[in-house]
């Protein structure tokens, strides 16, 4: 590990932490405007986080150490996972830190602890949320793996850093295989960030909530960390999609101007993707729980098709 990698780690982490809440707010505004409401201010997620960080934490008497440790495990895992996905500056590929499988396992670890913490307080909502989250995960994870396998297959590497390097230097404007893989990646983004039609992040209705049910017992700083790690997870999935499909602006050179342009380009592209996500969310109704596999099947279909396109094409 050299100095340039440390600089990348620092830059990427700062960028991901600073930008993530912004996109949560942006999606909320797009949804509100699409529904004819004004919506919260753009910086509301930052206000919420700073307010929550100052508030005290309250734990139920029945909770164990898992409840206390999970927010820290979650944020730590997300920050390490963020090193796999360069947002603006691509480092020289180093010892497999950008590995696709490592990335997916880290996110699975965070999800595992989150589900445990949902069960920990012994509340009915938390248990129900964890149960639903695990049911959805059991179906979406094989599909996520196949989607990322198709991505690796198309770009001939399992390393995100190398994938982005290849895309940044690509001459072809549109790669048909990557165009196809964008659909499953978008579905995975929707599912993993608990958005409509899979979950509804706005609601606290016991019959429908999944992600919100698991974090229901959290308060104060712990809740802030859980919210932030959720926002980071969203930014990471968005970054995968953006840097694969629209790699313009990505840089591998360590210059101030290059990094600034790359960061601005990413912020703009992620803003655009947030806008699309908000529109998709407000144009769809939440699906029935048992209808979800049909959505996942579409992701599976396009992932497999991408692999065949590469094998036979």
């Amino acid at each position, binding site marked *: 590990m050299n100095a340039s990698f440390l600089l990348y780690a620092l830059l990427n982490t700062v960028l991901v932490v600073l930008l993530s809440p912004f996109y949560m707010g942006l999606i909320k505004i797009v949804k509100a405007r699409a529904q004819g409401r004004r919506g919260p201010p753009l910086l509301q997620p930052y206000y919420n986080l700073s307010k929550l960080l100052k508030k005290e934490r309250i734990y139920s008497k029945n909770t164990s150490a898992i409840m206390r440790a999970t927010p820290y495990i979650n944020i730590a895992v997300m920050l390490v996972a963020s090193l796999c996905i360069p947002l603006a500056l691509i480092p020289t590929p180093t010892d497999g830190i950008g590995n696709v499988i490592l990335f997916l396992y880290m996110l699975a670890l965070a999800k595992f602890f989150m589900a445990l913490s949902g069960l920990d307080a012994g509340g009915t909502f938390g248990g129900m949320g964890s149960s639903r989250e695990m049911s959805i995960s059991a179906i979406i994870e094989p599909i996520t793996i196949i989607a990322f396998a198709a991505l690796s297959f198309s770009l001939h590497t399992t390393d995100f850093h190398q994938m982005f390097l290849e895309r940044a230097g690509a001459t*072809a*404007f*549109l*790669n*048909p295989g990557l*165009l*196809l893989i964008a*659909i499953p990646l978008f579905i995975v983004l929707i599912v993993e960030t608990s958005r409509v039609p899979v979950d509804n992040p706005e609601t606290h209705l016991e019959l429908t909530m999944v992600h919100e049910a698991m974090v229901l017992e959290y308060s104060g700083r712990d809740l802030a960390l859980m919210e932030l790690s959720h926002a980071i997870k969203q930014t990471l999935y968005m970054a995968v999609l953006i840097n694969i499909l629209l790699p313009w602006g990505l840089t591998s050179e360590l210059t101030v101007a290059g990094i600034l342009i790359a960061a601005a380009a990413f912020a703009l592209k992620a803003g655009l993707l947030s806008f699309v996500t908000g529109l998709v969310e407000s144009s769809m109704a939440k699906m029935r729980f048992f209808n979800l*596999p*049909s959505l996942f*099947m*579409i992701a*599976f*279909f*396009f992932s*497999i*098709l991408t692999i*065949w*396109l590469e094998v*036979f*094409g």
Partner: protein
Amino acid sequence: MIASGLPAGGDWIEALLVMVLVTGAFVVTRKDLLSLVSAYQLQSLLLSVIAVSLYLSNGSEMLLYLAVLTVTSKVILIPYAIKKIQKEIKISRDIDFHYLSPMESITAMIFLILLVYGSFTKILRELSPGDLFYLGAVFGISLTLMGMLITFSRKKVITKVIGYLTMENGVLLFSLFLTELPFMIEVLVMIDLFMIVLLAAILSIGVDSSVEEFREKFNAIHIPRLQKRFEHLRKRNGEEA
């Protein structure tokens, strides 16, 4: 004429081909009729853009005629007619299926496309001058099979018609890339499609009824409208007099 060398801007055409297949998958899986027709409309538009792109690269005027024919008939006239029928039958969702649900259909499609790829690998490798034509031919046949799946898995006549139309789009795609259909045949196929849509109008309204009931149903749709029109004209004439 058509397969005379790899066209310039092959990336764009490949991307368009992929998008055609995406619209095909959309038609297989969606249940609401309006978005089915819109997907078909988009698919036809993409096909005409592909035809124009191929024309730009090899200059065959027939491709341009095909594009114009596709836009007028499949992007404007046929969708307009189907949407009109939909309004009259007042059904917005097709949720009845024979044998296969949309999820099972899309799973079947995975294997069918594999089959097409498998069977074409040997034949087309020797015939096609470039990868693009191979891809176009495979996607054309796949789209035809998708249309076939829709035709036999959906119960409503109106969706079956969209299946037929998708099948025809698949044949058109195949003919654009691999074999050339004479323009006359394309025109005749288009007339057939109009006939299918007309028949669908009749079948959608009254396929589940006897001749007498059908007449009643048909009249129930058309007579009040005609009466209104007559009344309107009578009033206007009266005012003028």
